[in-house]
């Protein structure tokens, strides 16, 4: 038998056959290692968990069309590919329009969105009833519901006024006096005739401007220069029939026809975008505690049916990432060449980073304190072990053990305890972290293979350091004590 085998036999026998005392030391190292492994797991896993939790405070990134650009669903989908795959919690597109409820003489800001995404980006939305689907259903903010007295199951009729009908009026006012029609048609010898007509509240022509500068001044040009011609159109409804509603200017028949054609053409173009009224069923009342309570929500599909446009004003993104990474993502989206810009919702991002930082500092502190306590506990236990084994140590020295042998033997026991406690702790620590994670964060964590060697190593170091004082005391024991009774 080699010396090493005897050494191992001695220290394992010491640990296995002297159970009670060593069990305490093992337990303290095991518990220390458990806390360590658990805390390390939580330390690294919690930010991930917390970020997901933090996302419940709402979107932390906004994607908007760039200057002079537009945003639509397809473009948004392309933009989202710029984000790392698992970081995106949700992306809710929004289109905001003002809809009129003529029966109540009210108008509301109405948002078209994707409710399956809203659930992710705005988890704090509280809906009485249910979210609408695309079958002519709306979700009404609590404030509006109270004002107009609608309940889940009520119907409401909403009217959309095309944007072109509003352009001539003051955009900030809800009641638009009239629409501007701009049209063009081919006149004499391929010259273009342009008309600009302003309609009154009854959609009758209020003013008419004719640009016939491409036409011969003595003939067609006179449609512009002689106001009597334009005057005939005032107070008339579109479409105009020449010869009935108005008379052609003699000697300028072709240009006169072009003017009417341009007007009618402009009219039929806006016809597609004429005011549209749809009856919706209220499926839910929304409570958020915020400004959303003053909005009406419907699906993007319904919004598109109502307005005839696939267009987005903004997308609210909930991205699970650190502030730095978020900044990088926003930059990547802005630089993606899609004509969109992204910015962070600073308030949410900042507080998230601060809370996580504090939490990690706390976990770190607790771990250090626990490790110190473990060290004290192991040291005390080993100290007791040394006094308990004074006679044995004296005997070993009397039998010829050098101070070095005594040191190595006790350190060996310490390291052995450290390994056992470390393995025990790594396993229990993972279970501990798992339980914490499931109970506090409602999600499980994955085992980090690196955790085992790290925990064992730290445990061994702690056990060895804890043994230093006891070893010093052991070495000082006088072998003569074994002679004559003590």
């Amino acid at each position, binding site marked *: 038998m080699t010396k090493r085998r*005897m050494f191992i036999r001695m220290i394992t026998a010491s640990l296995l056959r002297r159970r009670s005392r060593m069990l305490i030391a093992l337990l303290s190292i095991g518990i220390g290692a458990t806390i360590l492994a658990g805390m390390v797991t939580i330390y690294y896993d919690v930010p991930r968990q917390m970020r997901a939790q933090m996302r419940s405070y709402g979107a932390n990134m906004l994607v908007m069309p760039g200057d002079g650009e537009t945003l639509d669903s397809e473009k948004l989908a392309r933009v989202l590919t710029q984000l790392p795959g698992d970081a995106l919690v949700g992306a809710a597109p929004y289109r905001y329009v003002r809809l009129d409820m003529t029966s109540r003489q009210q108008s509301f800001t109405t948002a078209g969105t994707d409710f399956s995404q809203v659930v992710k980006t705005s988890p704090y939305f509280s809906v009485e009833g249910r979210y609408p689907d695309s079958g002519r259903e709306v979700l009404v903010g609590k404030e509006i519901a109270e004002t107009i007295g609608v309940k889940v199951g009520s119907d409401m009729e909403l009217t959309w006024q095309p944007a072109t009908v509003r352009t001539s009026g003051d955009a900030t006012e809800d009641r638009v006096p009239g629409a501007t029609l701009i049209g063009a048609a081919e006149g004499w010898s391929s010259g273009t005739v342009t008309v600009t007509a302003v309609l009154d509240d009854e959609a009758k022509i209020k003013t008419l401007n004719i640009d016939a500068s491409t036409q011969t001044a003595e003939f067609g040009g006179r449609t512009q220069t002689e106001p009597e011609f334009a005057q005939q159109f005032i107070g008339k409804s579109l479409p105009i029939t020449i010869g009935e509603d108005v008379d052609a200017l003699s000697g300028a028949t072709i240009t006169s026809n072009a003017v009417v054609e341009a007007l009618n053409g402009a009219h039929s173009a806006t016809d597609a975008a004429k005011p549209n009224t749809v009856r919706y069923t209220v499926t839910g009342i929304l409570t958020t505690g915020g400004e959303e309570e003053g909005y009406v929500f419907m699906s993007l599909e319904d919004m598109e049916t109502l307005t005839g446009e696939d267009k987005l004003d903004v997308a609210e993104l909930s991205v699970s990432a650190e502030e730095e990474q978020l900044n990088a993502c926003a930059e990547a989206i802005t630089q993606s060449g899609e004509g969109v810009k992204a910015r962070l919702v600073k308030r949410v991002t900042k507080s998230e980073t601060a809370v996580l930082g504090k939490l990690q500092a706390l976990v770190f502190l607790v771990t250090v304190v626990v490790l110190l306590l473990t060290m004290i506990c192991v040291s005390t236990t080993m100290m007791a072990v040394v006094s308990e084994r004074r006679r044995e140590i004296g005997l070993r020295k009397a039998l010829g053990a*050098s101070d070095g042998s005594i040191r190595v033997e006790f350190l060996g026991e310490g390291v052995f305890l450290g390994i056992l406690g470390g393995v025990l702790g790594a396993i229990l620590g993972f279970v501990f972290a798992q339980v914490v994670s499931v109970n506090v964060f409602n999600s499980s964590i994955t085992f980090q293979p690196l955790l085992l060697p790290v925990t064992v190593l730290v445990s061994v170091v702690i056990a060895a350091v804890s043994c230093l004082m006891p070893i010093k005391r052991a070495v000082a024991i006088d072998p003569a004590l*074994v002679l004559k009774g003590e």
Partner: protein
Amino acid sequence: MALLELKNVSKIYGELKALDNVSLHVDKGEWVAIMGPSGSGKSTMMNIIGCMDKPTKGEVLLDGVDISKESSKRLTDIRRDKIGLIFQQFHMVNYLTAVENVMVSQYYHSMPDEEEALEALGRVGLRERARHLPSQLSGGEQQRVCVARALINHPELILADEPTGNLDEANENIVLDLFRQLHREGTTLIVVTHDPEVAEAAQRTIVLEHGRVAREVVNENFVE
């Protein structure tokens, strides 16, 4: 030829002279008993001979080496190489089996050899009980294990401190028989005792009183 020689050895603790100018001569292969009442200086002498203490004055030659001036590290080496110790209270490592206890002595001396350790246990009649823990052995059996442990490294000198003090008569006889065997094989034995029967088994008895050698008695009835 002298294995051990004490020349005018004194050990002084403050006012107390534990050993007072003691001289002693033990030949190789000799069996010597040291007797004396408590406080006569037996333990002090035992510690000095066992390389666990140093005299205040005088020379101690063990196998020609003066051990009175050596460092404690050197003393540990000398003790390990030359001396086998047997104690009144047996002193076994309580979590190791009988054979492992014997092997501990080999471990510090040179190489653990389980076969050899088992043989040594066989010699003291305990081969069958080699795998027992000290708590499973009687006092006599434990002391026999200690004899096996003391002789395993073939020491020049076996130093026994009241080896039969805690034993009944039957076990005392077994241990004394083992000493006789060792003596026949040429091992030098120094046995500290206050039991006249144990002292009579030796060739020569030295009686200490107040730190001095009071008298020396040669055992006329010694049987080889």
